């Protein structure tokens, strides 16, 4: 007889509940429930187009900046869709990249140390340094993930909920001093990443292609956790579908694409959102039987896809990670590693961006037409901390007629559709331990506030 168990998942962004159906000591079916809903898409309707720039960042307190960038892109694309050219200086583009990257780093550091590692403490009490609040490693993580957001404050004024980017550029006029300050912060965080997280020189780390090579050379926290995870039997759990989705190119380490067996280009017209199991249907709330979450179910060509750092690594055809997916039957470990790996890649990229800013360029180039004259539909894309973010805006008479947000977490943690479970639901089917099931769900970097918005 199947037993149904409901668990609240804490230590994630927002609130998530797991409904697990047990049979013969294994999870037979799993529902991920996002019980919190605010209705952003409805609030955006009928508001002036530029208002979206201050409203969408409020979707999430931790990846709000990604929403700002996606909205900016969507509005700039709206100009293009209307046949107007829109110019953005390289300086403005670089500044946007920098602030977005900093947000990703702060998220990854904090996710690894504050959300993932505390679970390992339940198995192994030797990891005293990692203990919340009291452990030195925990405090260091908070310190550095806080330090990096200072760069966002330098360019964007505040974090969280930054709103400084507009179609045509950015609002800030940084000085050389501010650039220097930002560079010194990046250097400082990079040093921490080398010494503590990967425990080796970053160039050496980038040359690594195999698991054994890493375990041999590294002395960092990442290695410690990976070894611990292998010891605890995480090598073959946590696999979702072997399908990965990335929507943006971020030079030099992220390239867009859709991989299942082989890689093809991403085409937004193949994305659809299925509402069968969501409380939201056709823009109305419905609580009929079978519906269980506020999240929808985005599908690409009708199939569920996993998005996030692991997807970005696979779509970038990163040798190390392609090897890792062969080493490990389950993707729990590669998923965690990919997120930590990204910190290093992004830090190196930020420094390059900072050094390439030409302060003589304009921050803002006024679009030739007033935004009130734009009509029609446009998409905005962004690679956020948790994966691929898609915004879609439909404009009419200078106002928002409809706004649609597909967050990374709704790809990973949304509801099922008739034929497929969501990737995270799929990943915990068959497990026999509820703590491990929770850990696998956390490996997707849960954020319920984004999932439902």
């Amino acid at each position, binding site marked *: 007889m199947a037993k149904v168990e409901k668990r609240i998942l804490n*230590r994630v962004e927002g609130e998530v509940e797991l409904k697990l159906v047990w049979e013969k000591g294994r999870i037979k079916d799993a529902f991920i429930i996002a019980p919190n809903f605010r209705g952003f898409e409805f*609030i955006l309707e*009928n508001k002036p187009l530029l*208002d979206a720039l201050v409203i969408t960042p409020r979707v999430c307190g931790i990846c709000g900046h990604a929403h700002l960038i996606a909205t900016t892109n969507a509005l700039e694309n709206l100009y293009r869709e209307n046949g107007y050219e829109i110019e953005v200086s390289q300086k403005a583009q670089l500044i946007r990249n920098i602030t977005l990257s900093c947000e990703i780093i702060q998220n990854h550091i904090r996710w690894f140390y504050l959300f993932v590692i505390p679970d390992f403490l339940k198995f192994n009490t030797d990891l005293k340094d990692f203990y919340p609040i009291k452990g030195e490693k925990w405090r260091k993580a908070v310190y550095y993930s*806080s*330090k990096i957001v200072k760069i966002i404050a330098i360019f964007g004024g*505040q974090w969280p909920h930054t709103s400084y980017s507009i179609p045509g550029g950015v609002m800030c006029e940084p000085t050389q001093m501010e650039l220097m300050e930002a560079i010194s912060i990046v250097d400082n965080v990079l040093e921490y990443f080398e010494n503590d997280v990967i425990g080796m020189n970053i160039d050496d780390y980038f040359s690594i292609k195999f698991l054994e090579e890493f375990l041999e050379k590294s002395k960092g926290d990442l290695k410690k956790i990976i070894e611990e995870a292998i010891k605890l039997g995480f090598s073959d759990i946590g696999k979702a579908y072997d399908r990965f989705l990335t929507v943006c190119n971020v030079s030099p380490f992220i390239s867009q694409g859709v991989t299942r067996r082989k890689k093809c280009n991403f085409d937004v017209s193949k994305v659809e959102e299925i509402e069968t199991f969501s409380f939201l249907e056709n823009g109305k709330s419905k609580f009929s039987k079978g519906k269980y979450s506020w999240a929808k179910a985005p599908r690409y060509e009708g199939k569920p896809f996993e998005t996030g750092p692991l997807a970005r690594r696979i779509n970038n055809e990163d040798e190390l990670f392609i090897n890792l997916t062969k080493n490990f039957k389950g993707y729990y470990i590669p998923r965690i590693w990919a997120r930590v790996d990204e910190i290093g890649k992004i830090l190196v990229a930020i420094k390059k961006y900072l050094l390439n800013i030409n302060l003589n360029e304009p921050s803002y180039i006024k679009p030739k037409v007033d935004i*009130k004259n734009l009509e029609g539909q446009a998409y905005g894309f962004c690679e956020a901390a948790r994966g691929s973010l898609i915004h879609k805006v439909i404009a009419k008479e200078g106002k928002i007629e409809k706004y649609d947000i597909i967050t990374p977490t709704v790809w990973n943690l949304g509801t099922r559709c008739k034929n497929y479970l969501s990737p995270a639901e799929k990943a915990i089917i068959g497990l026999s331990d509820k703590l491990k099931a929770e850990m696998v769900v956390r490996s997707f970097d849960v954020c319920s506030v984004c999932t439902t918005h």
Partner: protein
Amino acid sequence: MQFFSREHLRSVFTKPTNYINTNRGEAYYKALYEKMRKRLDELKAMSPVREADIKFEKMLDMWELSRRDFLKWVSATTALLMLPPNFEPLVAEAAEVMNRVPVIWINIQDCDGNSEALLRSSAPTVDELILEYLSLEYHETLMAAAGDQAEEALEKAVHDFKGKYLLFVEGSIPVGMPEAFTIGRHPETGVERVQRLAKDAAAVIAVGACAAFGGIPAAYPNPTGAVGVMDVVKGKPIVNIPACPANPTNMVGVIMHYVLTGELPELDSLLRPKFAFGYRIHDNCERRAHFDAGEFVEEWGDEGAKNNFCLYKMGCKGPFTFNNCSIVRYNDGTNWPIGIGRGCIGCSEPDFWDKYATERPLAASNIRPPGLNGVESTVDQVGLGILTATVIGIGAHAVASLVAGKKSDENNQ
């Protein structure tokens, strides 16, 4: 109430409730000192909520903060609370006995942004340290416990500290659509959860624009019928610390005041502590001199923007917004929106999403800044200036938001 009506604008510019008296005379401060002394002695006699907790000194040490850093923080906090310098020793002592006050922090319809702001402004400051040193009995994101264990911890804290704990609420409460927030093994709606936990609290502190006034979920058309804490909790002392996100400095200010006096700080008509929300952004803005001189940014990226001119014409709502961002700033004092050239959106005012946050409405027409009349007298006059201006020529943009605002008013009624 019509937002653009003469009466409303006049009330905004001459709000009497926000008058703060920064010098109340010797007798007042002497009595206050005595009172705080007594309160601190009482607290000291009590034992910490959890016996095993670390000493404050050691905590400073762990974070590599010196006594000097701490003293700097003490002076700043004393000034923040508008107390004379001779209160500094009391503030320092209060910080050390903060683990006598149990705190429960719950999230309803939120984005976790206020917890984030609290956890990491930029580098761990004494402010954040204090929040950690507090006896935080429940916080769903920060705590190590998870699932049922966490819920048990919450129930135990409510039981053990009945009538003593401070309840922090983050996020609005969906009254119109209770299904928009449910939590727990025996599902509880947002209203039930807040009311149940508030019942045994010493006071309720609504953190962020959503918890204070409904914030963004309550923006037109308010799909979930969201409201702030004060609309749901009755018969309890409530403090609102609005802004999006709320400034951690102000959260600490309220707690410090509670530790020092056992009471909540003086509040304005919207239940915001006067020490933080007693002035307009405009009053202490670093770009104020440019306003008075009539120097404005006319377009993003123009010469004015490069020279940090006033952002009023770009839609800055600083003259309408009561908050202390211009003094305490964000991310450990690193910067604030106006600092990088992005005007204020009025995030500490009720209904700001419909009335303030739109790009330019209130500043959409030319105003004539009364440069010669001295700094303090200008505010009201500028107000009258805008008043005539808004009546004559607001763009389609403004009209649109005006309609949105009106509708939400009707909706709320």
